[in-house]
């Protein structure tokens, strides 16, 4: 390896650090420091009295029934949600890969559920799954017994299904991208040898996509923790017992000013995450796995892009993915009176003997009144403007910082890189509730409270894109850099001229995920901006009361979809590189990968 690193290896040791520095400083300030503060808090009786108590908080916490229940439920939920989504996504990827290979638009549609705001999901889920919701209406018509889908034993299952709906499209794309990289000759050789589809899958394909599966599982865990937004909005502080998660525990003990419990819980969660993440991370490093969300290129057209009978499944899946968006559109086109009347049984608690509601599939009278209200300059439109105000600058700064940091990580060698990357990954997974107080303290100390900087700065240094991009940079064959170095290219030139052009597909993926993460921010502005008049649309929608007019909310939700949707459509294959970048586990041959580069 040393020989391959060749010229300039010794002075080059410091170069990655320069690339990493901005991100490291930001992560230190806005992610690591808050965690260190809670680490300190966890050894004191509380942050107000500040008496050192050693491990008392930890022992008390481990004996706390609520915490153990929350931890157990969180693990069960994550295992169920991520596991099932992974499995379904893999099956979908296998079933749809040919179709997906030739249609970027369908790929974009699969990512659609990610763009729907949490508040809109909550309204639609309530309409569908409430005791008097549309699903039970359907069940009654069939003659079956209605269920309480949002309570008791069904609550967790419903949320797992909701998670599945929201993320399976993304996972399918990630896994399809991985499947696309499997060399065709291996499969063809296996076919010639008489291997069946199952044999080919288990012997060849699964082996190839194992790293992507692990990577997707990690992303799944990240989204799993983020999914608390929907659960919190739907169920409040005390959900059904099976859905009482670590975030509920943390929020509730924060309400009791028991910050020491929260701190100790956060540290335990960190250790669990380190343990849980460490193993997959080691496996990923072993396999060198990766994934790419967005379509890289259109496969050669083998046939005309039109549906056949066999395409019914993808059509159905697309319908499921696009259903909330379609419903949002339909509801936005309905009159407020019609919406209220139709869904009275759900929100109007005075209803005496309500029957199940019927889902609005088409309004009695089409009206643009909701859009008129939204665009007439009310609070929702201004919140929309603030969403753009917070997201765009943060996104614009996040991108170069993350790229530099990811390149720095890729160039950094040794255990330090692994430790730092693992740290990034774990910090990424820590729920926002964990670092709520330290983040507030830091923002206050820096004078950022109630200013857009409070949102911009932590967002600009988010570990998510750094972690994702670093995986892509690590895939770059070292020969490329070595060749460039031999030609006298400096580090910056290699980074900008050689490496960046070669990860453009990944850049698209990262851009989309990074944008979505920023666009859907709720906790950060809620804690650090505080004033209602400063909240972005994601928070404003989440704060909408049940008795507020529904039509403008749907119109706002539809407008809310526009930027991520636009980004998704613009990042379709044609503007991305034709290069596919997922290195297979046993694909260590530099010759093969170097074919990918100009």
């Amino acid at each position, binding site marked *: 390896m040393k020989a391959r690193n060749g010229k300039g290896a010794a002075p080059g040791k410091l170069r990655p650090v320069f690339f990493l520095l901005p991100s490291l400083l930001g992560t230190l300030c806005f992610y690591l420091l808050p965690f260190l503060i809670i680490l300190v808090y966890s050894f004191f009786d509380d*942050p*107000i*009295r500040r008496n050192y108590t050693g491990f008392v908080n930890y022992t008390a916490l481990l*004996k*706390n*029934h*609520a915490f153990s*229940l929350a931890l157990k439920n969180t693990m069960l939920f994550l295992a169920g949600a991520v596991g099932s989504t992974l499995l379904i996504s893999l099956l979908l990827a296998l079933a749809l890969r040919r179709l997906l290979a030739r249609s970027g638009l369908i790929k974009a549609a699969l990512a659609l559920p990610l763009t729907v705001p949490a508040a809109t999901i909550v309204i639609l889920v309530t309409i569908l799954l*409430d*005791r008097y919701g549309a699903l039970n209406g359907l069940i009654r018509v069939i003659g079956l017994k209605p269920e*309480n889908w949002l*309570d*008791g034993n069904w609550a967790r299952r419903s949320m797992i299904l909701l998670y599945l709906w929201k993320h399976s499209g993304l996972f399918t794309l990630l896994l399809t991208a991985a499947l696309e990289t499997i060399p065709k000759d291996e499969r063809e050789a296996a076919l010639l040898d008489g291997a069946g589809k199952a044999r080919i899958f288990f012997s060849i394909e699964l082996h190839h996509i194992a790293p992507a599966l692990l990577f997707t599982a990690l992303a799944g865990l990240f989204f799993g923790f983020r999914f608390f937004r929907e659960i919190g909005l739907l169920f409040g*502080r*005390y959900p*059904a*017992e099976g859905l*009482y998660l670590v975030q509920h*525990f943390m929020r*509730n*003990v*924060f*309400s*009791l*000013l*028991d*910050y020491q419990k929260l701190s100790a819980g956060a540290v335990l969660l960190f250790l669990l995450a380190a343990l849980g993440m460490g193993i997959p991370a080691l496996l990923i490093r072993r396999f060198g796995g990766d994934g790419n969300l967005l379509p890289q290129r259109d496969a050669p057209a083998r046939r005309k892009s039109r549906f056949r009978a066999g395409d019914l499944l993808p059509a159905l899946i697309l319908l499921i993915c696009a259903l909330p968006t379609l419903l949002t559109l339909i509801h936005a086109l309905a009159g407020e009176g019609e919406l209220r009347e139709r869904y009275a049984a759900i929100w109007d*608690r005075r*209803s005496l*003997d*309500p029957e199940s509601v019927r889902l609005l599939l088409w309004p009695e009278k089409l009206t643009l009144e909701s859009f008129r209200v939204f665009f*007439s*300059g009310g609070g929702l*439109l*201004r919140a*929309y*403007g*603030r969403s*753009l*105000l917070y997201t*765009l600058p943060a996104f614009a700064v996040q991108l170069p910082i993350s790229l530099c940091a990811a390149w720095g990580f890729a160039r950094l060698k040794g255990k330090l890189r692994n430790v730092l990357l693992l740290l990034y990954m774990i910090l990424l997974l820590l729920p926002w509730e964990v670092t*709520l*107080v330290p983040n*507030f*303290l830091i923002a206050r100390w820096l004078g950022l409270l*109630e*200013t857009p900087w409070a949102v911009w700065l932590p967002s600009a240094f988010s570990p998510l894109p750094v972690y994702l991009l670093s995986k892509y940079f690590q895939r770059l064959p070292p020969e490329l850099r070595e060749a460039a170095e031999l030609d006298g290219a400096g580090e910056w030139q290699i980074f900008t001229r050689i490496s960046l052009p070669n990860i453009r597909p990944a850049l698209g993926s990262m851009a989309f995920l990074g944008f979505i993460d920023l666009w859907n921010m709720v906790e950060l502005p809620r*804690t650090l901006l*505080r*004033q*209602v*008049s*400063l909240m972005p649309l994601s928070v404003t929608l989440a704060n909408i009361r049940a008795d507020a*007019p529904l039509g403008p909310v749907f119109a706002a939700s539809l407008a809310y979809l*526009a*930027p991520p949707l*636009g*980004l998704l459509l*613009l990042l379709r294959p044609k*503007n991305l590189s034709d290069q596919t970048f997922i290195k297979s586990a046993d694909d260590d041959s530099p010759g093969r990968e170097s074919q990918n580069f100009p």
Partner: protein
Amino acid sequence: MKRICLLLLVFVFLFTAACGDGGENSPAGTNAPATPTPEPASDTRYVRWTVAEARTYPLVCADAEYGWGKLCLLGEQEGKPVLLYGGTEPQTIALDRSYALVAAGPEAVWLGVETALVCLDDQGNQTLSLTLSEKTEDMTCDGDGNLWAAHKSTLTLVRIDGSTETVSLPQGFTAGTLCRLGSGGIGVFASRTKGDVSPVLRLTAEDRDPRPLDGAEAWPMVAPGEGTADFYYYMEWGKDHPLSGGKQIFRFADGRSTPALDLAGLGREGLIRGICPDGADFIVLYTTEDSAGFLRLKRTEAEKQILTMARLENNHINSDLIDRFNAEHPEYYLVSRLYGDEDELHLDILAGERPDLLSGMCVSTEVYAAKGLLADLYPYLEREPELLADLVPSVLKSLETYGGKLTQLCPDYVLYTCAAPKRYVGDADRWTLADLESICTENPELTLWGPERGMKLLDVMLCAILEHFADLESQELHFDSPEFIAYLDFLLEMDQRAQSFSGSFDYAGGEILFCVENFTSVAGESPSAAVSGYVQALTQLDMDALKFVGFPAEGGTGCRINATSLFSVMAGTGNEEAAWTFLRWTLEESVQETMTTYIPIRKRVLEAQLKQAGEGTPETTVTRYRDPVGAANGTNTETYTVTVPAVPGLSEAELNLFRDLLDRAEGLYQDARTHPCYELIYRECADFFSGKKTSAETAASIQSKMAIYLAERG
């Protein structure tokens, strides 16, 4: 690259479109996003204000404005209509007729009445006369000298050259008062015929499409702002806004809770008619019954001691109390710090920004008391044994929290109890859930509270339910017991009986088991129809047939105190003594005597009120403004007279009954906002009563969630 550029263009377009009206803090014509306005160089807060110049004119004021360094006072002098107009020495201009409205422009002054408008130049010469098609309700000039006149649902823009233009408001809005905006154009305080928030709409002569200003609500008393601050508003509670009340004036652009300046301690009487910044000074226009004038306020060097009160409510009684305290204590400045939720307050506390006082309404005081964040008030009270002895003991006892500490204090309160027919409860003065259930089982036609249904019934029972089915200290819960399930079924049955109730509210002889009585006061005027004073209650209830038994309770009396204002002193702030000054002030007899809306905590004051109740009051007539806000603005001074009927005096036995009820009071009335357990049970039962859950499901759910709730505290 092209796509990326296109993407950026789309974003820029969306951003521009979305922020088009959001630039309310930016100069007119720009579309900059809404960002907080920076603090002006001169921070007018937290300082004492003194009157640098005061002018009073023998003038019955119709309308007044101050702008561009000129005072405009419109009214009558010796029965003749006049206009006072000018700088420090305003000239008196005799008018040919009475006008109701005045608007100051940069180089002219506009007068208006009904549909007529006239424009006078600097010398008072009429330069223009117009007749509009509708009556003018209010008018103001924008920074360019254009006049805006508000009618019922439209506006008229009168340009300098006299040309007019009608501007319509969006459907569903009616125009209210107008105000010149500091950043250009005018603000229309439009009231919305439907919906809860009435926005301030912004208009300019160039852009006549009304758009709401961000976060602005319809504050009726406003003044133009300076610089980028759009306007000032001042809090108006009750019928008027006297200077002596120490009203706080807020800069709209600052947000919600920090006043730009307060008029506390000015020691002037009169009603505020307008306020306007004039350089570093403020001009306050005021009127008395037969005079009008202005005050020029200058800040003094001596700063006040700042006290902060954390509030999760915006109760006007508390606000008035704070205003009065500020007015009477110029050395202090008690500032309300309003919080959206408890999490915000917790963050401030954890960050070391502990408020000096805590308003206990909508707050789980026990959480703070348990953490030792609230000072015990007994040591303060024990310094004055006479005062301590003069406070109603049962109220003090009810307010105690952990370990017998008095961590909260209320200057006044409401007494909650229940009355039930003697034919059901006999001579008992208390009852339990089981008593109530057995009475209803024996009398199948009986309703609990007439037509009052599920959740309201639960409200009455909640305290007893919690006592009966949970022991929070030993963490024992019995919500999954058959007894609780049966009790839920019983409540559901009573809900159904209430649904079919068609009888009258004859508490003594009808099919109603109990009525809830909220004695807001002894004899005072009820603030709303839903509650009544003790005297009114006794005149309405047949006490020969009824008995006060309290709420159903397991072992207690069931009489409760509902604190309308509840204050705590935060410990460890270093300002405890100053904070206590506020609480001590609320206990002053002079302050307590003014508390006629609710029951005072001082025994002497209460006894005086009881004595008055014993004497009764003769029939009186009261004159009131039909439109208090319009009266304050001078736009509508129409009055009406009401006759308050005579109230017969109470007998000594009736007065003793009240004293007895007060003695029996124990514990604070809690609701879902202040007690998490209540919130939890309430939420679950809401689903039960709306039919979304069965009693068994509800019971299991409450048991499981309450167990988690208790475990969290373990």
